[in-house]
């Protein structure tokens, strides 16, 4: 019964909440509008916006030694997570079933490597969050809930590899559904909002002729 709900109505609800929630969130942000900028630009805001979106993937040279942990752990987690999300064999199969689009999944050993990298990255970031005085001070419940929920989704995903127990697959899918429902109302929205944030700042500095 629970498995049927998870595979059926719960999944549909989660997807709708995710899609409409993200849309509502983005629209509510852009509904407010910025005031016009009457200053005469020195450089292109558009070029600045695009440049900042690309440049901010890597730290500035001056910051490398001070942000090594953030960068390494951040990339381990995100690359591992995206590899699992898009190339894990069960995910590829699932996407193919849902959309008709399929591609070559990664081999089992690559899944294990990607999962371990993602776990290491996420744990390092979370340990840093609770141990470092700065992140400890500025973090709130949302940061921890988002991290723990993501961890549980990844953990149940690994557990679901034991295909003899369908309950583990159902548990994983249920956790994904919770994650999808939580996403639009949480800090997980950074996955979308980093793009306009970088663009606004890049454009602002770009108009001044500064590469941001």
């Amino acid at each position, binding site marked *: 019964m629970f498995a049927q709900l998870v595979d059926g109505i719960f999944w549909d609800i989660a997807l709708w909440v995710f899609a409409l929630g993200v849309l509502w969130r983005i629209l509510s942000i852009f509904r*407010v509008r910025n005031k016009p900028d009457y200053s005469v630009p020195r450089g292109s805001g558009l070029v600045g916006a695009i440049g900042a979106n690309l440049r901010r993937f890597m730290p500035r040279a*001056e910051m490398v030694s001070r942000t090594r942990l953030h960068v390494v752990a951040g990339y381990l987690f995100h690359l591992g997570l995206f590899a699992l999300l898009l190339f894990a064999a069960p995910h590829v199969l699932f996407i193919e079933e849902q959309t008709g689009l399929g591609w070559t999944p990664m081999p089992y050993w690559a899944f294990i490597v990607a999962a371990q990298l993602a776990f290491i990255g996420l744990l390092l970031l979370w340990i840093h969050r609770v141990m470092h005085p700065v992140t400890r001070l500025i973090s709130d419940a949302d940061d921890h809930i988002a991290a723990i929920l993501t961890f549980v989704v990844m953990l149940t995903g690994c557990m679901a590899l034991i295909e003899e127990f369908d309950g583990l697959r159902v548990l994983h899918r249920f956790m994904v559904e919770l994650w999808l429902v939580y996403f639009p109302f949480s800090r997980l929205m950074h996955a979308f909002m980093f793009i306009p944030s970088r663009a606004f700042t890049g454009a602002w500095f770009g108009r001044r002729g500064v590469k941001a």
Partner: protein
Amino acid sequence: MSDRLTRGLEAMRAQMDTRVMSYMSSCVHCGICAEACLFYTETGDARYTPIYKTEPLRKLWRQEYTFWGKLAASMGLSSKLAEQDLADWEELVYDGCTMCSRCSLVCPMGIDIAYMIRKVKEGLAAAGFSPEGLVEAGKRAVEIGSPMGVTLKTLQATIRVQEKETGLVIPLDVAGADYLCLLSSGEVAGFPEFIGSLAKIFKATGVSWTLSSEYFEATNTGVQLGNSKMAATLVERVVAAAEKLQVKTVISPECGHAYSTIRWDAPNFIGRPLPFEVVHIMELLDELRSDGRLKTAGFADEKLSYHDPCNAGRRGGVLDQPRKLLNMVAPNFVELPETGAMNWCCGGGGGVSSNERADALRLKVFSAKKRQLDAVRPAALVTACSNCRHMLEDGLEENEMHDIELLGITELIADHLAEENS
């Protein structure tokens, strides 16, 4: 709810725009901004983390603009932004931030944190939580026309001294001149030779210029205080003076925030484009150099380094021009480490220099600048901001770095003008 809290909240609500809401929605609380802030790196105090300084604005955003925040507030599960929050953040925002924007260049989410701190200031200022020194400077700026209380008589006396020293006429209220030059009170009071240097360079290069007796102040305390209304009032005075003299271009002097204000923020304060162009004095000198009108002779042979004023460089885009000018006269020019757009602040920007309460903290965080200087150990440090120069003087004195001379770039160029110019 008290009146002052109401005023503060209203002022902060008025600051909510797409940028702020995007920034709030993208921050992952990674803390990287702390590593770029001299108040954190030099004190180790986590409260100086730049994004933490925006906490009042974030709290307001969360309780009024987010699903969970609104839900929690409606159920009485969250504490609302209170007057005490504003009181608690006054010191962090005004004493512990120079609005240098270094943090804004390093955030992986691309958040312009200084932009948001500026908005927090609007709320604090409206609620009356601003440092006394800065409030008084603001009053003097509005009532006298100068945050330091420099009057027209003082300017006229300074002009007379400079005319005597240079043997040149310093034009005042010349209608139809090409350029109106603004001055910062810091220059008039502390570095009057800047005015004489301008006279020498403009005479040599044939630039038609003038000062205005109507309004000469370049700085804008409204910006430092976080009072947009005051900022607009002061900008309108510049506009009126420029329009009265029918100038096409206004020159921002050697002052970082004066430049970023009049060049970039001023039109937005008054809600319309400025009726004139604005150039930083470095931009104009560099233009004269590239046109072949500005020629120098001889060199300053000692090892020179350059301190980028944050608001002229990082927030203003005047980064290459001073270097091209220095290359004309300084064969031993050496860059400081972490320079240009990532230069470390002098510690006194954003109104901190007018806030006596922050003096001890300002001198403590000068250690970032000291580290840069220790790596190069120049004989002289050149800058293009009188406020930076004052702050650097203080810092060097405090750290007994008496072997480093401080120079203004305009004076350095004026001292090396070629005979053929004239």
